[in-house]
């Protein structure tokens, strides 16, 4: 059935659903199929990495409570070998779980019970980069960003970033000298159109800094403007 839907909207993307609750996973498959995504379901944490390698998805939907292996560990494993977007499904809105999930490499999260449209919006925001690439090059600090080629260079050295971190960096680099609030960043990078969790921004800015800054303790590329947001360093 998903194949039929996929053929109606070809090439929208492939989603790996890692969730131990069979009815939910099936329902997710149906909803994603309606939206034109292909999907495959994996019910156990310990086989999730194998399924990921086998299926090569464009996005992973990952439940945090999994048999075999916890969602956080699966998240770290996938992140270790790929920058593919990961959206966590969590039953707990508690700060600790969300932060741990984000720090282990997830790009975004949705709290159960979520509205299907909300989930689809989150997924779309993460896989939307199917738009035709525009040849564009921007600079931020001593970094050179090739937007079309999806690469960031410091001199000759290429810095590997996940798509989300890349988007975040590009968003800042395209607005030099301008302070972007967390709200604006959530809208531009994550696609949220209403108030959302600003911790998403904080955690990912930290992750981005750890990769692009010379000294993450004294950032020069992504600067914090206290009480307002972030801006690109000159």
């Amino acid at each position, binding site marked *: 059935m998903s194949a039929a839907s996929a053929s109606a909207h070809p090439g929208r993307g492939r989603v790996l659903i890692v969730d131990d609750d069979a009815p939910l996973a099936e329902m997710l498959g149906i909803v994603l199929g309606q939206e034109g995504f292909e999907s495959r379901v994996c019910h156990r944490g310990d086989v999730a990495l194998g399924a990921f390698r086998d299926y090569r998805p464009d996005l992973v939907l990952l439940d945090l409570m999994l048999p075999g292996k916890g969602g956080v560990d699966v998240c770290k494993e996938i992140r270790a070998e790929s920058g593919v977007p990961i959206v966590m499904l969590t039953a707990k809105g508690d700060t600790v779980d969300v932060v741990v999930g984000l720090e282990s490499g997830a790009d975004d999260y949705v709290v159960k*019970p979520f509205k299907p449209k909300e989930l689809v919006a989150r997924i779309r925001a993460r896989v939307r980069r199917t738009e035709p690439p525009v040849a564009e090059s921007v600079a931020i600090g001593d970094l050179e960003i090739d937007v079309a080629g999806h690469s960031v260079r410091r001199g000759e050295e290429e810095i590997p970033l996940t798509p989300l971190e890349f988007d975040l960096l590009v968003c800042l680099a395209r607005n030099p000298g301008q302070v972007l609030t967390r709200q604006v960043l959530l809208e531009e990078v994550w696609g949220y159109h209403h108030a959302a969790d600003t911790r998403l921004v904080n955690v990912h800015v930290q992750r981005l800094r750890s990769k692009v800054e010379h000294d993450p303790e004294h950032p020069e590329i992504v600067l914090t403007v206290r009480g307002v947001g972030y801006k690109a360093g000159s």
Partner: protein
Amino acid sequence: MLHDAWRRVAPAVRRALTFWRRSIQARVVVSTVLLSAVVVSAVGWILLQQTRQGLLEHRVELVLAEVETEMAEARTRLAAASPTGVAPGRQQRDLVEPIIDRGDSRGYSVVLAGPEGQDVPLSEGGGVYTSGLDLVSVPADLEAHFDGVGRTTAWTYTGIVRRGDGTAAGSDDEPVPAVIVGSQVQLPADGRTYTLYYLFPLTEEQETLGLVTRALFTAGVLLLPLVAGIGWLVTRQVVTPIRMARKVAERIAAGRLQERLQVSGEDDIARLAYSFNQMATNLQRQIRQLEELSWVQRRFVSDVSHELRTPLTTVRMASDLLHDARTDFDPATARSAELLQAELDRFENLLVDLLEISRFDAGGAVLAPEDVNLDDVVNRVVTAAQPLADQRGVRVVVEHPDDPVRVEADGRRVERILRNLVTNAIDHALADDPTEVVVVRLASDDDAVAVSVRDHGVGLAPGEAAMVFNRFWRADPARARTSGGTGLGLAIAQEDAHLHGGWLQAWGRTGQGAQFRLTLPRHLGAPLRHSPLPLVPEDAVSSDAAVVPGPGTVVPPREVER
């Protein structure tokens, strides 16, 4: 200057007073010492009186006996002398001189006064007496007693005054206490009656009395510190266990439930300790049980809520799918899909609110404070509530003060409180009435910020203002809700307000609408004493409005009268 001195001394005085108030031991010791001092003084005084009386009585007895002997001897001598032929003066001397001599050697003084019956005062001379004696030593009343013939022997107390006569010794001395005995004798030479006064000094008795006094005083002075010491030791025996019990009780109160008193012996203290320990054990058991129960219950609510989430998510998605496809269904099925969708929204909101309340109950709610601009929050909330207001035909007006209203608070929670108040007001306002306005007012001062939300709907009956914050409370169970509230909104709002150390209060009158007021301290942790906005709206008709604070809030007394 005096003021400065007081300021220096005041702390010490205050410390001493505190010690006095707090220490049973000090009070017991001081009162024991005071009482002992009174008792010792009384006993000493009685002892002294009795000693004195005994000494004097004994002395008077001796003196009278001696005088008796002297007089008998004198009379014998006079009787032996020839009644005539001797000059009275000579006979007087013959009579007195041996007595004076004997008096000198035995320590008493003698005065021969007379002759009686002539009204010649003793001080005007005529008498023969021991040299150096001042005649004022003879008291006037005794003299008066013997102002006549044939008076019986009499005695009284007096003071012996010595005449200076240039001799330094004793010239300025106090009068020496003495016993004076008078007795009359008839002189054969002139047949007249003369009075002989014997003055026996009481020096010895005085010395004895002084000795006894000193001994008693010394004993008393030594006794008082001893009594104080004994009092201190005895009260310590009682107070020490009490103090230990206090310390243990404090520790138990602080949560260290396993603390116990040491029991030794079988006396009252030991039994107190035993009972105390038993009480602590029972309390500990009860508390443990309650803790376990409450933990189990909290865990249960949390588990149930979590377990509900996953199936709810599936149902939700299925419902959405059906809802989106309802145009393909027959009318009954399509309507069912719509109802399913709408009720799922309610169910979801309820679950979210239940989870939030259970988090408050578990004490797991934590503030994420930030600098919040309340004007922005209010604008956001009102904008978000606009569709509902339009649907109900209610106007919402915001009255901002000139200065921005900033507060240190958890923006998410404050927004949730205000969202609740505003939707609640729109919900209860008069629908489709052009005069109806929901007024949101902001104000701030140095210590606090406040937002009030006023509607002019059916209002609240007396006593209902306190109940609006109860969980699942409805003013009128028959009244429909339009905004689909869960019944937990105001309860959560109040928990949020309390978490900030703020107040959420309600005012309402039947037919006059209601006003809710949120007051928050400008800085977290600062105590809240007043609100920049009145709770009772200015357009309220009567002053006897039903003003009831929410549970647990503190209402400043003046607030109600305004």
